[in-house]
């Protein structure tokens, strides 16, 4: 589980455009639960998400992962933890153009130097799980929006992470695809994974699958016992 203690994030420190995206946030994310960070744009959702996912460091406060303090770990170790623990799903699929779906999916695992045959098997089974086997050799430019999103999900899972982080995953999906996405989230939960989603889509935060909804406004949590 993830714990944030009095976390604050300031951007452009020292310059006239300085602003703090989140201020004094205390948060506990429970294991094997689906948590949604909800709030209007500019509320600091993405910032909070990236701190939770070890993508950036807080300007003040502490972050603990599985009771281990990670706030001031060197980048090396932080990246290592991030690679092994988290899987990220972005708003846009953010696939690398000009290379195949399979290669895109295997990309996050390259620095780890696993045997290729083994990695390929993992990748293919991941694609199979989301009905994308037939697209394995295709170039990503030829995928539809939904297919691309699903490929990015498979990519997020390639290192078998225990925590999935999704930033506005349904922003560019239609209703059917959004429901499909929530089904996938349910599968994650069934597999014992923890899921953290930011969204202002009611389809997401009103879903029955969601265990906890955190309201964010102007960088502060609303209506939560501290």
């Amino acid at each position, binding site marked *: 589980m993830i714990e944030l203690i009095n976390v604050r994030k300031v951007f452009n420190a020292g310059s006239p455009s300085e602003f703090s995206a989140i201020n004094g946030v205390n948060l506990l994310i429970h294991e094997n639960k689906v948590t949604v960070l909800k709030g209007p744009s500019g509320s600091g959702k*993405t*910032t909070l998400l*990236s701190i939770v996912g070890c*993508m*950036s460091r807080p300007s003040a406060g502490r972050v603990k992962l599985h009771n281990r303090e990670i706030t001031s770990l060197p*980048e*090396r170790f932080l*990246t290592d933890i*991030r*690679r092994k623990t988290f899987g*990220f799903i*972005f*708003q*846009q699929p*953010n*696939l*690398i*153009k*000009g*290379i195949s779906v399979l*290669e895109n999916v*295997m*990309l*996050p695992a*390259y*620095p*780890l*130097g*696993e*045997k*290729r045959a083994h990695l390929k098997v993992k990748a293919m089974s991941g694609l199979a799980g989301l009905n994308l086997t037939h697209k394995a050799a295709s170039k990503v430019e030829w995928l539809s929006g939904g297919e691309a999103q699903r490929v990015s999900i498979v*990519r997020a899972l390639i*290192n078998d992470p225990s925590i999935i982080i999704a*930033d506005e995953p349904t922003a560019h999906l239609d209703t059917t695809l959004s429901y499909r996405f929530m089904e996938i989230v349910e599968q994650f939960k069934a597999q014992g994974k923890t899921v953290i989603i930011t969204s202002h889509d009611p389809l997401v935060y009103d879903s029955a699958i969601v265990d906890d909804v955190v309201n964010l406004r102007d960088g502060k949590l609303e209506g939560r016992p501290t």
Partner: protein
Amino acid sequence: MNPWIEKQRYIIDFTISSLLRRKVKNIGLLALYTLIVFILASTMFFTYSIKKEAKLILQGSPEIVVQKIVAGRHDLFPVSYIDEIKAIRGVADVESRLWGYYYDSLVQANYTVMTPSRVVDTSQSNARTTVVVDPNDLHAADVNKPLYDYDGAAPEAGSIVIGNGVARMREIGTGDYMPFMSHDGQIMNLKIAGRLSSESELVSSDLILVNGTDFRKLFGIDDKYVTDVIVTVKNPSEVSMVASKIKKKLHSSRPIIREEILRTYDSIFNWRGGMMIVIFSAAVLAFVIFAWDKASGLSAGERREIGILKAVGWETSDVIQMKFWEGAMVSLTAFFSGVILAYIHVFFTGSAVFEPALKGWSALYPNFALTPFVNAEQLTTLFFLTVVPYTVATIVPIWRAATIDPDTAMRHTGE
């Protein structure tokens, strides 16, 4: 070690996919880079080989050549000077030389006409004919003797031996007649008694060996004069001393010692030489342009890609390794291809690309196959001067982009 090797392989896989996305641009880059290496390596191979060969072959050139200089120009050498030189202490022998140039207006070529003197080197190369002989010739049995054993000296009166280049230019051979216009307007028809070998073209291509009497008749040179003389010295270490004595005794003389001959050919094709500077500068300039283009920053697309890589879990060092491989792969391929092509170009095709420049305005150009001499030092230098800068130039612009915070990367990626 294994995961590390596997990781490098992955990175190379990805880099190649990455490069293949812009096929035309990258293939053009590779071709240009290869061309630069090709030109530099060809120049290296050619100049080194020819200098080395010159050094070896010209070891047998005369110890001292003495010319007479009048008004700054090479004038005829009076025979009376010979005894004066012989009288100098340290001089072993003085031999006169008759040689000059003949301009053949038919093919617009310059030939070197000379009268050979007595044979010095009696050692023969194995099974080598110096001269291609006319099968109808009475002396056909002499085919395995060195050239001058016909009568110990020059060809008989009325006959000549021509270099292979001359034969080629005028498309004539043994048995044919070749007309010469002598100094007084008369035509002299000389019969070709033999042809010098094609292997020796580098030294003999334009030679016409003629009898002494014919030479004097052709050029109108009185018996009192010769073209120049060669001096052999008793003690080889005293060559310079003897040369300076000659100069002191005969003020209008100009002695040239063997060392200077060798030095001339050592400095041939020196980098300072005009054309060499041009080739070299052009190559360096092209290279700098390349590297500059690479180093001057990333396109938005490349930045985005690095952002994605960081976002999915690649470290800064991984991204830099990727760029390193990109530079190294292109460099290595270009280097090997360029050097291989250069080798084939210089030693198998006789520097076909350089030929127009080397030929210049001469009509007669020797066909010669250079002996392959390769200088490992030069090759290594070329390697470090091309591969290393290019690889570095590829990595440098990445530094800033690669250190991007994954969070920032995450935000800014996206169409």
